[in-house]
């Protein structure tokens, strides 16, 4: 039984439990949280945050957070435990788990976190005190300070591992504490990180509380937590966001990160070798990330040459890097999607399916006609031909604001593609092979990572 909770401030050991299972079938539990206990936890987190603000510099926080996170991927017993946890929770193989953890960990290093604070806040100084504003043109001086609210509420509904840690780090960096609802599909990694953080610095460990309860409902303990939070961060679909919004006081600020899709564009002068990079992007996170490519557009005459290269690359990766295997529902949906494209192809010759026979290891559904319909299925790509980029923009317009990443290969009309990306609200345009691994200071969903969490205080003087 996995322990899906980390709750500082509980005076007694929990006696009543809520039990759940991840999609891969791993059993986990979290304590039933009464309102009184929820209040005690929130109070403990707030107290720890306020104390840490006066006794730890932001630089020290970054150091502790990076050391704790580093243990999840460096050689050592902690990383062994982390990988074992993810294998159990997600049903992933060792290689996929290791690659995912290492990829995430690149954004959790001291250097990456410092770079993020520098990029968004000009350094840690403004989090520790007032900093002179060189842009000030009024009389005297202006100094500014950035600070998060003491407590941030987090709801994690997705199941990409590590997202809960990234979200928690962002809050800790702006000197907030965290009250978190863990995702059902991957509830264990954040509690593990919190324990490692507490081992580095017990006071910082007390700035994080996380637990789980079943379903999309919000129990009384949650409403208690909501009363302590200055800001709320939600990772989840429209339904989750709406449910959270309804459960919170009307004036609570909410920062949302919703499901997104990845679009790959094969420009007219692309080289076949690009397919290998795209295949790697597909396999990362088991294609569950908002950055994962799912829709591919080939600009030009035919999808055929690129599809053949992509099929070969996916086959290579399936051998080196076997996929975890679909659920029954996914298997049924993949076969239905394949049947639709295959039989349509027999009818009009304009669509086709590439797959390793009846195996569901990977699937390419290709069509010579533009479309943008996809389903959330493992290692399944929809490849469409578009005659030109103008058509591409028209096809993608219904997805405006829902595309996280546009990957590309080739250079022909790349500038035009970047214009389309900006107009469609795409948050990142990157070459094949790097779609799945955005840099640490990437503007996730087109938003700053830290700025939405801070409140600025301006201090003006006449001299």
């Amino acid at each position, binding site marked *: 039984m996995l322990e899906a909770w980390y709750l500082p401030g509980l005076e007694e050991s929990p006696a009543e439990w809520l039990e759940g299972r991840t999609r891969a079938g791993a059993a986990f539990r979290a304590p039933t949280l009464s309102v009184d206990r929820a209040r005690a936890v929130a109070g403990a987190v707030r107290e720890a945050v306020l104390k840490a603000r006066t006794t730890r510099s932001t630089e020290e926080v970054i150091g502790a957070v990076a050391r704790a996170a580093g243990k999840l991927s460096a050689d050592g017993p902690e990383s062994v435990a982390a990988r074992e946890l993810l294998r159990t929770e997600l049903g992933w193989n060792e290689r996929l788990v290791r690659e995912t953890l290492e990829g995430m960990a690149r954004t959790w290093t001291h250097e990456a976190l410092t770079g993020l604070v520098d990029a968004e806040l000009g350094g840690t100084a403004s989090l520790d005190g007032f900093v002179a504003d060189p842009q000030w043109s009024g009389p005297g001086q202006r100094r500014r300070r950035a600070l998060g609210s003491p407590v941030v509420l987090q709801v994690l509904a997705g199941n990409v591992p590590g997202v809960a840690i990234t979200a928690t780090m962002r809050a800790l960096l702006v000197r907030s504490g965290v009250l978190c609802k863990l995702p059902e599909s991957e509830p264990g990694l954040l509690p593990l990180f919190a324990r490692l953080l507490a081992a580095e610095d017990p006071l910082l460990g007390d700035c994080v509380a996380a637990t789980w309860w079943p379903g999309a409902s919000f129990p009384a303990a949650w409403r208690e937590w909501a009363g302590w939070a200055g800001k709320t961060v939600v990772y989840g679909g429209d339904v989750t966001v709406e449910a959270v919004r309804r459960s919170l006081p009307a004036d609570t600020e909410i920062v949302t990160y919703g499901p997104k899709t*990845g679009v790959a564009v094969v420009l007219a002068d692309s080289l076949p070798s690009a397919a290998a990079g795209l295949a790697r992007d597909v396999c990362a996170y*088991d294609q569950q*990330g908002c950055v994962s490519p799912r829709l591919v557009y080939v600009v030009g005459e035919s999808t055929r040459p690129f599809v053949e290269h992509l099929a070969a690359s996916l086959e290579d990766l399936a051998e080196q890097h076997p996929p975890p*295997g679909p*659920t029954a529902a996914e298997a049924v949906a993949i*076969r*239905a999607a394949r049947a639709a494209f295959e*039989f349509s192809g027999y009818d009009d010759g304009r669509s086709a399916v590439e797959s390793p026979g009846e195996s569901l290891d990977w699937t390419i559904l290709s069509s010579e006609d533009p479309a943008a319909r996809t389903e*959330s299925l493992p290692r399944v790509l929809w490849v469409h031909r578009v005659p030109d980029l103008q058509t591409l923009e028209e096809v993608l317009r219904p997805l405006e604001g829902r595309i996280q990443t546009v990957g590309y290969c080739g250079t022909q009309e790349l500038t035009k593609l970047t214009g389309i990306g900006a107009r469609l609200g795409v948050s990142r345009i990157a070459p094949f092979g790097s779609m799945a691994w955005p840099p640490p200071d990437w503007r996730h969903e087109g938003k700053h990572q830290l700025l939405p969490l801070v409140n600025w205080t301006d201090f003006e003087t006449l001299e």
Partner: protein
Amino acid sequence: MTSPRRAAGETFDLLSAELIAAFNGWRPGLSSWDESTLDAWARRAFQLQFEGNTPYRKYCEARRVGPSDVNGWRDFVPVPTEAFRVVDLLVGPGVDPGLVFRTSGTTRGRSAQGRHLVRCPELYRASLRAGFRAFVYDEDNPAKIVTLPPSFTHDADSSLGWMLDDLRVGIGLGDGVSVASTAGIDWGKLDTEVRESAEGGRPLCLLGTTLGFAEWLDRLEDGRSVASKLPEGTLLMDTGGEKGREGLERGRLLRGLEDQLGIAPPSIVNEFGMTELLSQRYGHGDPAVPLIGPPWLRSIVLDPVTLEEVPRGETGILCHFDLANLGSVCAVLTEDQGRAAGDGIEWVGRTEGAPPRGCSLATAELLEAQGNA
């Protein structure tokens, strides 16, 4: 029964005529269809479908399966039900189907309707009536058939509506009645049938959807319809399941009907059919297990990922073989979960759409919501 053989100059008409005769001649317990008999029919059916159904031939060829590979019904390449949404699967070419049945409902954010072209309605009818006589209706004690069509059977091309109409006119004494009105069910007319049956002593054979019977029970319980103890021999066959009405439990429905009308299992039969399949299965009582059918309808249970047959009793995806589908494709891979049970199968449920994975957006539902799909 004559032994099927590969006739020289095989044609659809010839084979379907032989099958109609075989279906009509079948009596459970009296005439058996052993595995080799079925396999011989299956070989001939595959030859016809491979030659005459172009999309199916291409599907088989892509899997390197041809007539020489098919020695029996288990060797058929099954077609996923999704194919019926995409192409017309008809043994032709250049023939007009005698009937067109449309599938209803939405699958995984996709509302495209499928259709099953029925080349030979007589073959369908022969299978339907043979199964109904064998598993539901006692012709030595001919109950009066009363059909309760739900409103959607008024839509054109409903296989369910066609089935109820055919049974009403073709089974028993031929005096069956439909209690249809333009708005759905004519409740007054149903009350009259119930009253006449209760008073006159002739049993009824009530055919309708599970939802239609649920609506009737609501009316019986609040007094809008007449409750009477119906004579012994009365039968009730429901079909379609509880889908579409939240909170409806078939068990509660059946107990209610027993209280109101005195009909109890095994006189309550659940019919299991699908548009893509022209033969039916029937289950008695509650739960309706096992679902049994005529010997030309076979079902196997497959692992959804590997498509290997699962050990007996385990749940998997149902794959059916039906000789009544001679005019389209005999082997159909469904999205239904089920398991082997007794001499038949147990239907466990539809495979629900895969839940969203991680934070990867499925655009299908978004586009559907925007009307762009």
